[in-house]
């Protein structure tokens, strides 16, 4: 009874996710927090366990059999991830980091440090996650760069009217492909072309988009793209910075240490080629193995089908929420459609998001309350916190129904 979707057999998919067998407070678990972190399918957990128990060794320097296999698995993961993004040169364009946040800090510190100076402009949008704000603010404080902000339309889409003006003279547009609060999907291909026309590069924060929408860095003409493993059915502890080969090749190192050098003397070091240059120290090896398996899992279902399913679910949910709390419920985001992802940021007039989430928890519904690391957006919306439900391929209409029922309870309790 899980699905409205003709697209996915949600009941079958759920069997791949052991955590969904868990009960919470005596209720079936409705996991509606994939925007914060997704659940890993058994295949991903198994791939890492198998790696640890049959292969584990440090990569790159060993010549013995398991070290060679570990190295191969790690480098294969780079190719698997690169292909998933449509990258032309996966082995030179994918740097593994610990999460999206490190990827963006790497970009700001390395590319920004080398290419931006006093008065140079980086354009952000008001819907960015802190991960795509704070690193640029740090750079602004260190180097005097200027940050410009793209605003939103009344329907909470990106306001493209101000785009050309904002890009005028800018060096970089750094923008999310999908808002983790609004679900708004930005037209990254168009934005890339606009940025390039203005002589700027584009970095896309793909933390929310890569797990849920087809991504093609070449077709969309992206210069840089960052995202996290743990939001795309993969493990914690790994993220990705994609960069066009020639751009990464020209960037100075970020973290210093083993694996990122060609030579070290007491008075100087010589950095290795990209992407190794950006992978100082022992990399997240098991995590790369897990991430590659997550990509294979997504491929086996089909990202297009996942997207179609989540869009159907979003429409169903928006309809279902319409009747709740007598008009005292708001979902902050555009209507369901091709530019709308499966993220529902809910506020009730009389119940604080934190209380909403607490009450939902008591009936097994997992949503996240708070500012979702997007405080400038919250200020724009004039709310302090929302209760956010976000979908994954394992969600069905039963989860939405449980959400709606829990929300009714919250309004009753606080009524």
């Amino acid at each position: 009874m899980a699905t409205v979707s003709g697209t996915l057999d949600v009941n079958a998919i759920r069997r791949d996710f052991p955590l969904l067998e868990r009960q919470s407070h005596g209720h079936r678990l409705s996991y509606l927090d994939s925007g914060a972190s997704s659940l890993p399918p058994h295949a991903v957990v198994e791939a890492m366990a198998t790696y640890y128990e049959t292969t584990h060794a440090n990569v790159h320097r060993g010549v013995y059999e398991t070290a060679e296999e570990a190295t191969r698995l790690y480098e294969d993961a780079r190719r698997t991830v690169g292909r998933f993004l449509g990258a032309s040169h996966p082995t030179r364009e994918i740097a593994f980091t610990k999460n999206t946040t490190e990827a963006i800090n790497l970009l700001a510190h390395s590319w920004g440090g080398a290419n931006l100076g006093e008065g140079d402009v980086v354009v952000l949008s008001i819907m960015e996650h802190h991960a795509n704000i704070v690193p640029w603010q740090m750079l602004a404080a260190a180097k005097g760069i200027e940050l410009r902000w793209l605003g939103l339309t009344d329907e909470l889409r990106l306001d493209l009217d101000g785009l050309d003006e904002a890009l005028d003279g800018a060096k970089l547009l750094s923008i999310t492909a999908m808002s983790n609060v609004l679900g708004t999907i930005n037209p990254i291909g168009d934005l890339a072309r606009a940025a390039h026309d203005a002589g700027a590069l584009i970095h896309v924060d793909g933390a929310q988009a890569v797990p849920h929408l087809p991504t093609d860095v070449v077709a969309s003409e992206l210069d840089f793209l960052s995202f996290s493993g743990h939001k795309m059915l993969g493990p914690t502890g790994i993220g990705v910075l994609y960069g066009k080969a020639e751009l990464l090749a020209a960037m100075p190192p970020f973290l210093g240490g083993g694996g990122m050098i060609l030579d070290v003397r007491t008075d100087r070091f010589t950095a290795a080629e990209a992407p190794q240059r950006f992978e100082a120290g022992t990399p997240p090896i098991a995590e790369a193995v897990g991430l590659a398996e997550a990509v294979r899992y997504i491929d086996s279902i089909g990202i297009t089908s996942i997207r179609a399913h989540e869009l159907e679910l979003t429409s169903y949910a928006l309809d279902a929420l319409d009747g709740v709390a007598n008009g005292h419920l708001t979902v902050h985001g555009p209507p369901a459609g091709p530019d709308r992802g499966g993220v529902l940021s809910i506020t009730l007039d009389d119940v604080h998001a934190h209380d909403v989430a607490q009450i939902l928890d008591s009936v097994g519904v997992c949503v996240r309350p708070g500012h979702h690391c997007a405080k400038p957006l919250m200020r724009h919306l004039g709310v302090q916190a929302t209760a956010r439900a976000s979908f994954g391929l394992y969600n069905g209409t039963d989860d939405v129904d449980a959400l709606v029922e829990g929300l009714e309870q919250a309004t009753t309790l606080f009524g």
Partner: protein
Amino acid sequence: MADLEELYREIILDHYRSPRNRGELTDEAALRAEGFNPLCGDEILITLHVDHGVLSDIKISGQGCSISQSSASLMSAAVKGKSLDEVRQIIATFKTLMTVHEAQLEDGDAEPEAVDLRKLGELAALQGVVKFPMRIKCATLGWNTLTQCLDDASL
């Protein structure tokens, strides 16, 4: 659900719906302190007057969940008109109540002191919070901000 009802006692909901001492003292003499709960975005602004060692007036503004708001409201009612010594005492007692369980999330293994709930009066209603470790930070936000306000003024 029993836990949930203990969390959302009627007195909590009442202080949430009708917060006491709501507002802001804007005169020069008022002491001010702002607090954030970075985890959930709750914000609080406390302004207060101290006259001859007595916390003579206190106003609370800001936004937050029922727990942080009602806790701050209950706090304002409990400390207003009290001597600074008494205020410190009330803060300490309340924090001990919260720490009973917060201890699990903090350092050390020291056995927490038992709190005499009768001493707490209405504040005892917040006791249900300790079963929800993630909410303890909501309940303590106002209290930490008040402490900071007094500390900043070296009171």
